[in-house]
Structure formats: C-alpha cells, structure tokens
C-alpha cells in the first residue's frame, strides 16, 4: 500500500466574524493531495467565505489554516501561485479575446511568454474553445465562459483548483460538459475544492465532503458514507394534497424508519421503498402520487438541518 497522500490544506478552529454575524464558526477540516473535496450547503452557509480564506484573499478572524504548510496571511502571493481560482461570478476580462484572457493571466503569474503560448493551445483544446480563440469573451455562452474561467485558472499549472459553485446558472448540457472536464482534471491528480448547493454535483464530483450550515460543519464523509449514516437506502415520496399531508403523517410514521413532512409532500425513509408503498396501500392510505427513489445528499441535509438545501 502507498503511504497516505500528504495533507495540502489543514484548518483548525477556522473562524470569520463580521460586525453583525459569524460567517464561519470554528471549523476543522483537512484536504489531502489528489482529493476532490466538497463544501455542500445552502447559500450563506459560509462556503465561499472559507474558499476565500483558503485562496489568500480574505483574512480569518481566528483559528489557524495552513496551505502547503504556509499561512495565507503571511505568504499570500506564494500560496496563490499554487492555486487556480474559479470564482462564483465570472470575472473574465471583457475587453480581451479568449486567448488574450489566458495570456494575460499567465503573465500575472510571471510566466514566460513562450511557456504561456504553448499552454494556451493545450487549454483551448481542453476547454473545447479552439474555434473561439479570437472571439471577445462577451460573445461567449455561459458554459463557454465557465470553461474559459477554468482554463484560465489552469494556466499556472496549479496543484489545487478551487471552484465556487461551478455550474450554477448553467443548462444541463453545459453542466455535464463541465463535469466531464473536472473529472479529467481529477484523473490527472489535481486536487479539487468545490462548493456547491447541488447534491447531484457533490455526488458526482466529490470523494469527500463537508456539509455546512450557518458557518458550522454538520457532517463530514464521502457522499455514500453520509447517506449511509444519515439516511436510509431508499425514499418513498408521497403526496396526499397539501391540506391532507399533515393529517396522515402520524399514520405514516408508524410504517417506516423516519418521515419528513414538507409543505407539498411527505418523505418516508426505509430500506425498501416499493415494499413501503405496498404496506401503506394495504393499510388503506391512497396517495395522489408516489415515487420511490434512492436516498441522496438532499435527504442527508434535511436530516441534519431540518431544511431543504434549495429554498
């Protein structure tokens, strides 16, 4: 067996306070080399704040953080040289073309022109933007802009690629193209740090993730580990009509391991959803609609916080 991968990022009691609220509340986590590490949580959970602290563009209030053994507040430029940053909102250079964006970004890192020119060809292919090379970025679609932002972040050959909500606002097809590219990077051994409020994204991309809510870590594990610990194998979703849902909840609760009553539907947790549906119908309860599905991180989040991820 190989020796365990070295730890690239280690945070202890990491806290960010603003005048009127605590954005990040004493969190501990560590990321090993080659990990694909996710921060899952709703808006305002403290994910982006944590990312900015790691990216050496935000000072912490207390606690400690080391990135490749260095403190970001003391060695900002050195740490940023290891990172590729894909911000939540694209900040591509609107005045420049696709290649010019890649070129100037490489120059900001001080890279030699020859190195950058060769790298640009590689990245244009990776981002499938060869045909757009001389196009101004404002003419690109949302998906293309995202891919260019990722390509730009890769110009310095970073060890850690940080993606803040990488697919928010993209259509399904553009999301899948992006996921495919991120998989490739993962295969190449790039450490990925991803924030997302999409469960499917976290399940697709992350080996390990922390579930965050209101600045704190609620749980940490692999996606499947989280589901195993905090949910059942399957979920039966039933609707009895919005006024009746609450009335039948008591009866349903007796049939399964756990239920969640949402405004529009009831989630029933158990090992076998079909069987659950069968027993329910036998006991004389006829839902308007029913759906059996596997448990997801959404269920984990609901269990941990009592709230849905996307509200």
């Amino acid at each position, binding site marked *: 067996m190989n020796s365990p991968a070295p730890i690239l990022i280690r945070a202890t009691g990491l806290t960010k306070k603003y005048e009127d609220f605590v954005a990040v509340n004493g969190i501990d986590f560590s990321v090993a080399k080659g990990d694909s590490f996710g921060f899952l949580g709703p808006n305002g959970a403290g994910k982006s704040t944590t990312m900015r602290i790691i*990216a050496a563009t935000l000072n912490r209030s207390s606690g400690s953080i080391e990135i490749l053994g260095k403190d970001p507040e003391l*060695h900002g430029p*050195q740490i940023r040289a*290891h*990172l590729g940053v894909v911000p939540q909102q694209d900040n591509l250079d609107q005045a420049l073309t696709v290649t010019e964006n890649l*070129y100037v970004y490489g120059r900001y890192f001080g*890279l030699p022109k020859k190195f950058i020119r060769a790298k640009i060809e590689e990245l244009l292919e990776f981002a499938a933007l060869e045909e757009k090379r001389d196009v101004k970025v404002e003419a690109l679609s949302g998906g293309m802009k995202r891919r260019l932002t990722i390509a730009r972040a890769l110009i*310095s*050959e970073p060890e850690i690629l940080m993606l803040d909500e990488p697919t928010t606002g993209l259509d399904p097809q553009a999301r899948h193209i992006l996921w495919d590219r991120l998989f490739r990077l993962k295969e190449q051994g790039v450490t990925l740090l991803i924030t997302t409020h999409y469960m499917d994204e976290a399940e697709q991309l992350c080996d390990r993730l922390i579930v965050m809510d209101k600045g704190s870590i609620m749980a940490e594990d692999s996606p499947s580990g989280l589901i195993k610990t905090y949910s059942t194998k399957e979920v039966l979703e039933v609707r009895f009509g919005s006024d009746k849902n609450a009335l039948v909840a008591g009866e349903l609760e007796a049939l399964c391991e756990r239920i969640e009553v949402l405004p529009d539907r009831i989630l029933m947790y158990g090992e076998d959803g079909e069987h659950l549906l069968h027993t329910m119908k036998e006991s004389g309860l006829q839902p308007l609609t029913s759906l059996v599905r596997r448990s997801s991180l959404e269920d984990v989040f609901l269990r941990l916080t009592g709230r849905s991820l996307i509200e």
Partner: protein
Amino acid sequence: MLVSAAVAIADARIGKYGERTFSGRPHTVMERSYIAFKSSAWIVVLSGFVEPLLYLFSFGYGLGKFIGTMNVGHGHVVTYAAYIAPALLATSAMNGAIYDSTFNVFWKIKFDRIYEGMLATSLGPLDVALGEIGWALLRGFAYAVGFTTVIVPMGLIQNWWGILAIPAAVLIAFGFAAIGMAITTYMNSFQQMNMIQVVMLPMFLFSGSFYPLSVYPHWTQEIIKALPLWHAITLVRSLTLGDISLGLLPHIAYFLVMIFLGLFFTTRRLTALFMR
C-alpha cells in the same frame, strides 16, 4: 518536491521587503492594458490629444491677437500663445493621466471586476496599483509629447530648458494618475465619479492657465496655490520660459508627495476591497 513555474517564481520573492503586497510585476498589468488598448476606440484617444490644440488655436492665436504679449517678469516678454502653451502642456498631461485612472478604473472595479481576477493570482495589490497608474501615466506622457511636437515647430518653446518639460510632464501625469486612482477606489457611484469632472474644469480654467494669479484677491490666490494643477503649470511654464531656480523644487516635491499618497491609498484600498 517538483514545483510549477508559477510557484518557483513566487517563491523566489520570499523574504523580500513587502512580499505580501508586491510581486515585482506591475509591467504585466500594463501589458494587459496595452493588449486591451490595441483594440480600443482610437478616436477617443485622439480626442484627448486634439483638445489642448483647440485651446491653443482659439485662445492663443484667436484671443491672443487682442492680448498681444505677456510680461513674464525680469523684463521677459512672450507672445500670448507662448504664455498659455506650457499651461496646456501640463493640462494635457493631467487629462491623459486622469482618463485612465478614474472612469476606466471605476469600470474595472465595479463591473468587469478585473482586479479581483488579478489579485487571485500571485500578484499583490501594489503591482496592480503601479501597473494601472503606470499605464495612465503613459497616456499623460503621450499627450504631452504629442502636444510638444506640435508647439516646438511653432516656436512656442524657445530655450533648451524646455526639453525638461517632458520629464516634468511624466511627473505631473504620475501624480494625477496616482491620486486619480486612489480617489476612484473610494467611489461608489457614477454620480460621485462625475464630481471629478466638476473639479477638473474649474481647476483648469482658474489655475493660471490663461493669465497670472495676480488678478485674484490674495485669499483666492492662496486656494489656487494649494491645487496640483497650479504647481504643474508653474513648473512647466518656468521650464519652457527658461526661468530656472531652486524655487521649482517645491513644485516637484508637491508631485512626489501626490505620487506617494496616491500609491499608498490605492494599495490600501485595493487590499480592503479585494483581500479582506
């Protein structure tokens, strides 16, 4: 451990003074401006060059016909055009510097979020400040050189000290660019940005561009002498008229202080905006 080129470059600066705010690469920020400039609207750039010439022709040669000559002290008499030409030279250095360091910078902060992108790399805030101010300065310098190449053949600079008007224009442009960018980083809206224009025009009209300050009451003179453009005009005019003395040093010092304050506050503000 094998490190990437970007890391090796950044690590080479460990232990150097100011390593957290400066990476030694403002030229890469200027290179970005140059690339963006190549495809920008030339007509806008050209208008800044033409503007002082329009003043020179209408006031210098038009109004100058009625004014005749100006006594500039020590029994030295010059044409009215030669009197206002150095003022217009100083003003064009100022205008060139202000264009890029105010509205363009405001746009980059608020809408394009260019600096956020730059500061996610191994650049520091002082690299960004120096790069942007340096680029703005170049435009002021270019306008000053352009204006000078027009007025020298017209015989409006008649002594060799006048050559120093060019480095003086660089100093002036540097000062205005630095202060312009510093002020812009504190602005929140276009209304506030328009205040800059509201200040610039009267400053141009009343800073001794077209006639000596002696026409004003004492208290007005004192106010104008506190403003940067008066120092710029006085410095350039003394050089083009060959009126050289140690008395020019305070004007130079004024701009050195402006440059220092501008860089200091720009760097501080960029840090506060994007790195806190």
